[in-house]
């Protein structure tokens, strides 16, 4: 489940941020490792909400810093 979520998240990140697949690890930070600015992150969260059919509140979105944070959040909120 977590693996599947990671792969789907990774696919969106690679497409949206135009980064190499191997850069997208659970530990990678959006800002420093993946070169996303604040607008990229807002857009990415919209995409993830669509992809996983859930809503990420602004408060929760602000806590997200790594790819792992996103995967964990989605896994916890998907049931």
């Amino acid at each position, binding site marked *: 489940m977590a693996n599947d979520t990671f792969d789907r998240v990774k696919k969106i990140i690679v497409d949206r*941020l*135009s980064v190499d697949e191997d850069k997208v690890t659970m530990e990678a930070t959006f800002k420093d490792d993946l070169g996303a600015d604040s607008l990229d992150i*807002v*857009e990415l969260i*919209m995409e993830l909400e669509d992809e996983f059919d859930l809503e990420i509140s602004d408060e929760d979105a602000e806590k997200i810093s790594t790819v792992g944070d996103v995967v964990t959040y989605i896994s916890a909120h998907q049931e």
Partner: protein
Amino acid sequence: MTRRVVVTGLGVVTPVGNDVPTFWESLLSGKSGIREIDRFDTTDYPTKIAGLVTDFQPERYIDKKEIRHMDLFTQYAVCAAHEAVEHSGLQITDENRDRIGVYIGSGIGGIGTTLSNYRVLLERGPKRVSPFLVPMMISDMAAGQVSIDFGLRGPNSAPVSACATGSHAIGDAFKLIQRGAADAMVAGGAEAAVVDIALAGFSNMKALSTRNDDPTRASRPFDKDRDGFVMGEGAGILVLEDLEFAQRRGANILAEIVGYGMSGDAYHVTAPAPDGDGAVRVMSAAIADAGIELTDIDYINAHGTSTEFNDRIETLAVKRLFGEHAYKLAMSSIKSMTGHLLGAAGGVEGVACVLTLKNGIIPPTTNYETPDPECDLDYVPNTARKCDVRYVMSNSFGFGGHNAALIFKKYEQ
């Protein structure tokens, strides 16, 4: 003594070519870029044709992620700016970047992005509107993006004066260098407004040609059977430099820019003043600014939109100002081939003026078949003309009554 300003680089994206050599070759051979619109369904539109950029490859200059975050008008500007800066050979360094600026305007800005997000808003609500909507739609973003791409930290702005935008940008940039506020400027216009709502709006003004069955002959400036303009899109960018700055780096100088005039019609939102008053005053102001005689002008790159109004009144204005000399100078409109690039028109026409001086060839007015008694000047009909040209004037007139005229001169030491 005022500083002399020269042109050292050119770049374009146009319906007749996405680089300067292709663009120029098309103009000299009379090739049209007007075609049927295939980007949306035009069934219910009286006009179904436009001057469209084809085979555009933004990834040549722009990162894939960035392409998605730039409206098409900004992509056109960035690609044309890359060609212009490369062409100039200007090396941007930490020593000079604060003295090099960008003036690139757009008449309409990111209308395509605005509309696609409006559809999202209606269908899916406010939470799905892109965080990139605002930076993509605002008309100044071409200037902003080009400065970011090249690290140009000098004067930066974006005039908006409808179809005179590109010429105002070039003229304002020229003046900045002339008065010492910058050493070089990347200047011009960009537009990408061939979208459904703009086509509908222009159509309902009865401003557009409806010659849908014969697209390449639809834009016919000064011809008696003209029936309106044809929308176009693209970008035209010039690199302007202080002469001494250019000489110090051994630049290849293409032409000099020597005059800039501005005027307002103060008459009507879309119609030109019936006696051509605004046009007379803007051309006169440019000639005064250049400090030359009326008879020095060899060629006018006309606004020449192919509307009944513009072409008749522009002709009248040239005759009122130039008198006898109006019949001696040449005047052509490349809009006969490119269509009307709106805010980018002054940019690409500025490029055409520099190429005219550099190569000693005047591009023709194509589709000129039936003379109009009210348009009786030498429009360089249908065939390019070899001719030694020393001073050229580029006219641009925008809705709102904004007029701009530029004078370029063959470069002499």
